[in-house]
């Protein structure tokens, strides 16, 4: 464990970045963007994690101070949820745009979707 797991999320991020930069298929680019998104979300969850922590849900008979002793940090989890929702909206937009582009150009190849120049 230790720092390795953080470095792994960075590796995932770089994989996504590579796909976005190097691939020419629109669907693959969308997948790459999603991988970048998930890598950041993963890091965000890891930031709030503590070893042997419990889920930050208040159970009957427990005070907030007890939970703060044992629970993992709930704030990054709320942030991740927000970020996932944003990612969902963006994915829907990307997919619908990809379908529209396929309607107009008849291809998913970025090299052939090139009316704009200069």
């Amino acid at each position: 464990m230790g720092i390795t797991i953080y470095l792994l999320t960075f590796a995932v991020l770089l994989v996504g970045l590579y796909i976005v930069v190097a691939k020419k298929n629109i669907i693959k680019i969308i997948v790459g963007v999603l991988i970048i998104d998930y890598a950041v979300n993963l890091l965000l969850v890891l930031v709030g994690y503590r070893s042997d922590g419990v889920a930050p849900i208040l159970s009957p008979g427990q005070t907030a101070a007890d939970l703060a002793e044992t629970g993992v940090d709930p704030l990054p989890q709320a942030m991740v949820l927000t970020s996932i929702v944003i990612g969902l909206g963006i994915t829907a937009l990307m997919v619908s745009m990809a379908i529209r582009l396929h309607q107009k150009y008849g291809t998913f190849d970025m090299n052939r979707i090139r009316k704009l120049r200069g």
Partner: protein
Amino acid sequence: MSQPGMTIIVKNTTRIIAGFIALFGVYIALTGHLSPGGGFAGGVILAAAAVLVVLAFGSGFAGRIVNEPKCHIWDGTGAMGFLVVALCGYITGGFFVNFIPIGTAHHLLSGGMIPLANLAILLKVGAGLAGAFVALSAFKYGRPRSIRRVGREL
């Protein structure tokens, strides 16, 4: 197949379970302040019921139950509801301030305005996701014929 949609097995199963799926979504949203879940998760489940109906019966027939104008209206209503809950906070002090008695913890009627906000999010997310799915599933009808032959690219 003469009829749109999937086989009779799928249709009948959908007929029975779609309502329960939707109900489960509402349950998840209603108990969002007590257990994991909440408006977003409930809304996704609610939208899953709508997606199931569209898939099983085909978007033509299911359009009577799940269609774009309906989704727009409910989506707007949900978002508006959330904003109204936030603005009602002005009654007691400010934006997003709780204006309902908090109640005893771990009971259904507790959490102040959180359940109301969850219900609004349920509507918003359910209608929004269902609307996104309906909009995406409508695309295949609008495809121009001249391009259809190059559909092998994927």
